[in-house]
């Protein structure tokens, strides 16, 4: 094994760490496995982005696939991404565009991300009641569902998005199995982790509403799914200021994933 390809959202990007590239779990896990650390996580990213980027890596690196271990951190299903056409981006206030690019560069976005990624893919936080991520705040007026109910982010209800997530997980798992590629999945946070994103008047997600409640998950071989979740493992007192697992937890999480990989794949 030569490469550790890690992807996810802010939990895998190392949000809130002093020096994410040196302190996040993927760095320690790569060291343990003796691999090069290829971390393509992006704060605020959706599962759609995660799967899109993995497929891009796959088609760009067919010769590396059998030498790559994929560690895939699943994020909140309600997140989404859409492209913004250049004509539309001109509509956005110029300062907002600069802010988008600046925010991306300033917070550990891998430098090899194309300008296309920065300029045209926009990630939304928690559905049509949420916020646009990477834009540093609440919806702008033009992003809100309008008076006629149009939802510019085109996001279905929770369970529909959970099914979307499962379809991509099954897709990846099928591809990996068929091609003898090593991989594991885990969730950055359980669905409950949304608590700190939600407004007080929004209801929390119940047990029977998590991704595991969806019948489609039965098509996925859960042997490769590490079911402990990163954020919940950290606990309330071991988080960074922005409520992500701190440096101490990153080391422990690398150990946990390492042990799980050994358990699943042996030595």
């Amino acid at each position, binding site marked *: 094994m030569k490469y550790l390809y890690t992807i996810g959202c802010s939990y895998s990007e190392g949000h809130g760490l002093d020096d994410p590239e040196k302190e996040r779990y993927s760095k320690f896990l790569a060291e343990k496995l003796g691999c090069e650390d290829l971390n393509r996580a992006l704060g605020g990213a959706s599962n759609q982005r995660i799967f899109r980027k993995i497929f891009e890596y796959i088609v760009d690196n067919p010769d590396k696939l059998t030498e790559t271990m994929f560690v895939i951190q699943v994020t909140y299903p309600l997140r989404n991404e859409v492209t913004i*056409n250049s004509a539309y981006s001109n509509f956005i206030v110029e300062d907002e565009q600069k802010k988008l690019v600046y925010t991306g560069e300033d917070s550990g976005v891998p430098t090899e991300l194309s300008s296309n990624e920065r300029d045209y893919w926009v990630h939304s936080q928690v559905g049509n009641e949420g916020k646009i991520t990477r834009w540093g705040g609440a919806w702008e007026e033009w992003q809100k569902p309008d008076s006629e109910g149009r939802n510019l982010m*085109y996001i279905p*209800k929770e369970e529909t998005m959970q099914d979307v997530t499962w379809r991509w997980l*099954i897709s990846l798992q*099928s591809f990996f199995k068929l091609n003898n590629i090593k991989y594991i999945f885990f969730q950055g946070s359980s669905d409950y982790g949304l608590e700190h994103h939600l407004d007080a008047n929004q209801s929390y997600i119940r047990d029977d509403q998590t991704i595991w409640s969806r019948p489609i998950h039965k*098509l996925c071989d859960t042997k490769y799914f590490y079911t402990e979740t990163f954020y919940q493992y950290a606990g309330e007192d071991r988080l960074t200021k922005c409520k992500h697992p701190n440096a101490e937890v990153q080391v422990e999480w690398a150990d946990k994933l390492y042990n799980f990989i050994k358990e699943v794949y042996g030595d």
Partner: protein
Amino acid sequence: MKYLYVNGCSMSDGTCLVDDPTVDDIGYDIRWSKLLSDKLGVKEINEGEHGGSNDRIVRMTIDWCVNNKDKLTDTIFVVCWTCPDRFEIWSEYYKRYIQISTGHTTHDDVDLGMANKLVKSFIINHFNLSERIKKHFINNVIFLQSFFKSNNIKYIFCDGEPVIDNLVGKYKKYKFFIDGENWWNYNDKINCFDKLARELNSFGIDWSPEDNHGHPGVEAHKYFANELYKFIEKE
């Protein structure tokens, strides 16, 4: 084998085969999927729908697998891909997916005001044929192919509209991951149902010589069913 599961667009649901406005124009008994299931001696399950996108095909096929796990080893799947520029988006207003073809709503949705507003907004602001649609579609093809193969499920792919020529052939890096062995006439000149109908000069009731556009006719459906039968037998 007990079941033939088919999904696709109007090229698969038998649109424009019957000239009877008192019923509808779908030839349920003479469409290729029914003829093929008869030849195979299995039950026909056709979830194709006119105006449907490839997103819909993949979503519904997987949903059927979820709900019919006990039937998977007794089923052969025939997926007839449609135009690569079709896709679906969610309408929160209607609480369902809206199918989009050539930038517009399709069939029964064309008169839905809110659906048209939604689609227009999406096309103007977010439509990116290369990034969003075409690569996403090829990912979907690889997805379904991998799912069937990794679960030892029998399947074949075929083209209702020219997918191999217009898409797979142009994205060379992706082609490496496509298995042409399970794809009807993958390397042949006549490699989609639409081309076959033109070759046979067999068209449905909507054929317009002026527009050079329409659906396959009765003979084309018969011929296509025979072709797929031979392909399945060979595979």
